[in-house]
C-alpha cells in the first residue's frame, strides 16, 4: 500500500464508502453583514456529487450569479469513513474574466468557503484568495 503520511497506512478493503454529501447541502448565507466576495450558496445533492450555485456578494468583480456547477470532488472528514460532518468539496468556475477554484468545508456547522481567483489577463485586479463563512439558512 502506498502512502504519503503514516496515518494513511490503513488496510481498508474497497470499494471506498460513499461520502455523505447530504450534510453539505442546503442554502448557505454569509455571516458577515458587510459586502463580500460571495453572498450565498445553494448546494444540492445530485447522486454522489453536489450541484453548487453561488450568488455574488457585491465585492470586486463578483458576478451576481455565478451559475451552477457540479463538484469536481467531494471529501469526507477522514479517510476511514464517508462521514462528511467535517467534509469538504471542490468546484471550479469559469467567470467572465477569471477562473475560480472554490473549496468549501464544514466546520462546527459553518460552511467555510475559500476561493482562489485567477484572472486570465492582466488588469486592475490581483489574483486573489478569499475565505468567508456561511451559516445554514433555516
Amino acid at each position, binding site marked *: 500500500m502506498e502512502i504519503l503520511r503514516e496515518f494513511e497506512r490503513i488496510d481498508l478493503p474497497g470499494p471506498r464508502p460513499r*461520502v455523505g454529501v447530504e450534510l453539505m447541502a442546503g442554502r448557505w448565507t454569509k455571516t458577515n453583514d458587510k459586502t463580500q466576495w460571495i453572498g450565498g450558496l445553494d448546494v444540492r445533492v445530485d447522486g454522489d456529487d453536489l450541484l453548487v450555485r453561488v450568488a455574488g456578494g457585491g465585492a470586486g468583480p463578483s458576478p451576481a450569479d455565478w451559475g451552477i456547477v457540479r463538484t469536481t470532488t467531494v*471529501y469526507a472528514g477522514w479517510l476511514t469513513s464517508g462521514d462528511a460532518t467535517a467534509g*469538504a468539496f471542490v468546484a471550479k468556475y469559469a467567470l467572465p474574466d477569471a477562473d475560480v*477554484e472554490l473549496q468549501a468545508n464544514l466546520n462546527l456547522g459553518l460552511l467555510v468557503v*475559500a476561493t*482562489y481567483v*485567477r484572472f486570465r489577463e492582466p488588469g*486592475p485586479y*490581483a*489574483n486573489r484568495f478569499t475565505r468567508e463563512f456561511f451559516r445554514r439558512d433555516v
Partner: protein
Amino acid sequence: MSVVEAALDLSVIVGDWRNTNPAAGIDRIVCEAGDDGLTIHCSSGVRDWGKVAAGVFAFEFDSGQAGAFSAVYDLGFEEVRVQANVKQGVLVVVTLNAFKDGSGRSNYFNREFFYRS
C-alpha cells in the same frame, strides 16, 4: 506563471515551514521563489513528495503582496490539492486528498499549521 502572478511579492510565503504538530501528516514545506514563480516542496516522515509549482494569490484585489498559494500533487495513487495561506505568521495548510488506487480509503479533508523555522 502568469503575468498577473508575476506582479505579486512572495516574501510572506517564501521560507522553510515546519509543522506545529509532530504527529501530523506533513512534516515540512519549503517554499521557494524562482524565475518560474513559486515552488513548494512537501515531505512527511515516510515520503518526500517532491517539488511542484504553485499559483500565488493576494488577500485583496488591489494588493501586491501574495499571502496564499495553491498547488496539486499527483502521485499516481493519490492526488493532493495543497491550499495554504499565511495568517498572523502561521501557514495554514488545507489538503484535499483523493485516492485513485482502488483502496477503501476515503477521500479526505485535512488542515495543518506550520511555523517558519
